């Protein structure tokens, strides 16, 4: 387990910024009540076996006893680095993103299951969308009852969405909670 270096940190923050925008500081600076101390510590990022974890400092201190190859996970995993060196967010960071998301999309109940199988969001399944979404923004996908379902990249801006035909793709799928069942081994 080691802290991230410069390059890695920028890659991670870039990706997060797409989804959270200025709320990024919430993520980085939020106080944690984990650990046994009375004072709340901060969160930090650590790299372990190509996975990036978002943990509070108290936990990090305690985890140093554990050998590198025996440490499996700590705190929340937010993503991993591929062999090519690029960083991808995984579904486990959904909780983090959902709280701080700038752009949200709500799905109709009929198309929830389709998204959970890994398909993109079509115009016909779109319930609501936040204003000022531009193409290429990260969006977090919710169900109508505000249950976070996953996240993706907006394919069209809000204006264009209105003009789109019902089968047009609105959000490109990146991760969804169905992966916990479909791809448990890959997480």
């Amino acid at each position: 387990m080691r802290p991230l270096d410069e390059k890695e940190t920028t890659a991670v923050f870039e990706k997060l910024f797409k989804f959270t925008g200025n709320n990024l500081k919430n993520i980085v600076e939020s106080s944690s009540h984990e650990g046994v101390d009375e004072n709340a510590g901060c969160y930090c990022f650590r790299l372990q076996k190509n996975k990036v974890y978002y943990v509070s400092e108290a936990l990090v201190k305690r985890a140093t006893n554990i050998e590198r190859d025996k440490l499996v996970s700590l705190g929340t995993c937010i993503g991993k680095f591929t062999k090519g060196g690029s960083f991808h967010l995984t579904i486990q960071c959904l909780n983090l993103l959902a709280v701080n998301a700038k752009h949200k999309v709500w799905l109709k109940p009929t198309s929830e299951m389709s998204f959970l199988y890994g398909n993109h969001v079509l115009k016909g399944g779109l319930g609501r969308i936040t204003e000022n979404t531009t193409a290429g923004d990260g969006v977090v996908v919710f169900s109508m009852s505000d249950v976070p379902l996953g996240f993706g990249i907006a394919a069209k801006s809000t204006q264009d969405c209105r003009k789109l035909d019902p089968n047009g793709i609105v959000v490109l799928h990146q991760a969804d909670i169905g992966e916990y069942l479909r791809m448990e081994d890959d997480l």
Partner: protein
Amino acid sequence: MAAASAKGKGGKARKPSPKKKQKKEFFSEKPPKELEDSDSPSEEEEGEEEEEGNDFGSEIYSDEDDPFADNFLQGSDEAGKESGSDLESESDESDIEEKSRAIDEERAREEEEAGAELQLNIKEESDEFRLPTKKELEEEALRPPDLPNLQRRIKEIVRVLSNFKILRQEGAARKDYIEQLKLDLSSYYGYNDFLIGVLVEMFPVVELVELIEAFEKPRPICLRTNTLKTRRRDLADVLINRGVNLDPLSKWSKVGLVVYDSQVPIGATPEYMAGYYMLQSASSFLPVMALAPQDKERIVDMAAAPGGKTTYIAALMKNSGIIYANEMKESRLKSLTANLQRMGVTNAIVSNYDGKELPKILGLNSVDRVLLDAPCSGTGVISKDESVKVSKSSEDIQKCAFLQKQLILAAIDMVDAKSKSGGYIVYSTCSIMVPENEAVIDYALKKRDVKLVPCGLDFGRPGFTHFRENRFHPSLEKTRRFYPHVHNMDGFFVAKFKKMSNSKPTTRPSETEEAVEQATGPNDNGTNIKNNLEEKSQQLRVPSDLKDRNKMSDGGLGKRIPKNGKDESDSTTKMKKQKRKFPSRKEISKAREEKRKVLRESKASSKRNKRAKTA
């Protein structure tokens, strides 16, 4: 007379009866006698009965012997003739008396015969249950198993055993019945001999059958609300809207729900995937409830996969503090991490160690609570995995027990007895075998300075304090056992310890315990040498006010449980045994002498004098 009787008969014969008509034809040669009908209904009734009786007797009809038969026949000859004339006449009265007596006798005879027949039937039924003879058993072994027959025999044996004195077969001992029951149960339900034998020893016969029946059926599916993300009521509403038929689990759980049936797959709803609930059996709630983790504590879960209990702990702690979730098998780690992430647990560190190594990694006396849900033989969850019925043998249980004993010592060593809010260890297994449960607890009580405390689960059955030849510590009644046929959850065992001090007693024999009251002066040398020596050594108990226990961590601290009465006799026997060793180690005996002198000076008591004498 005869005529009068004949009249009576004739009157009776007037009643339509095919038999009588037959007889009439049969005996048509008989000269018909004068008939007079009787109008008295009672007589008619009697007559009917009597005639029926006579129908019996008519088989053995003989003219001379049976006047009634005679009359009957003659009466039947007249059956066609309808003549209604009175029977009453004075001479008839005595006849009537005779007749009534005869009728009474007939009736009595009939009743007796009927009763005898009934008796015969009953007798046949109870006699019907006899233990099959060897020959019958051999025949049965050749044929394919006859299930209804086995089932019937099992029921019969249970019935006999429950009322043994009355229903037993002569010459058959209780043991024979039980042997046969064991054979039948193992072939009907598919168990191996070992498992059936153990179960027979643990339960009375009726309960045994209930237990085995309960193992055949699955327990209801339960789920646990993830209080980090939602409340039970809200979750129940959402699931009911999706078409799931559920109910709150029981009054002892505020987060459990039991699912009766569901239109959607309960393990694949969006709520499941969003981490709002976890599918978990009801028995798995219990060890975490017993553990009762508080906020900001350090908890270790030594065998955490797949993570149901770990996530429950995190939910109770509201993501504060730290949880070390350890799992030895790599293949199960994925499901553990996935569940932790899914349920939104942020305070967990997952490691992949063998549980026995954890104290070295995490440090001794460093955490507040430990949960050990030990790997076991799985005999309590036969309803989930039928292969356990045939695959477990005595060696398997012994191996499991050995591993569990090592793990529980490791668990106890990790806990800090001086922790402000903690100092507890919870041990649980999903097995009902005594060597894996009570024996392990007893071992821990002997080897470490711990004490059993109530689990907080009042609705279970207390654990065994004695079982066959084993005698366990009396506080074992604070442990809890759960059975499928009583509590409708998987077979389970939970025990909760409080660690009293961080010291470890020295190695000593596990059979005898001695806590000898001795003040320890400056005798560390003596104690150390002594401890290095013997297998059987007397223990020194340090009064807590004299010494800081931590310093004497390997200086021979005995358990706090005084057994003074036993001590005396044991100490004398031990002395005799120790005598053998003394001659071979002169230096050590000298050291011991010196120590004893010191002790004698500090406390004068007859016990010590004896020891001095024998030494």
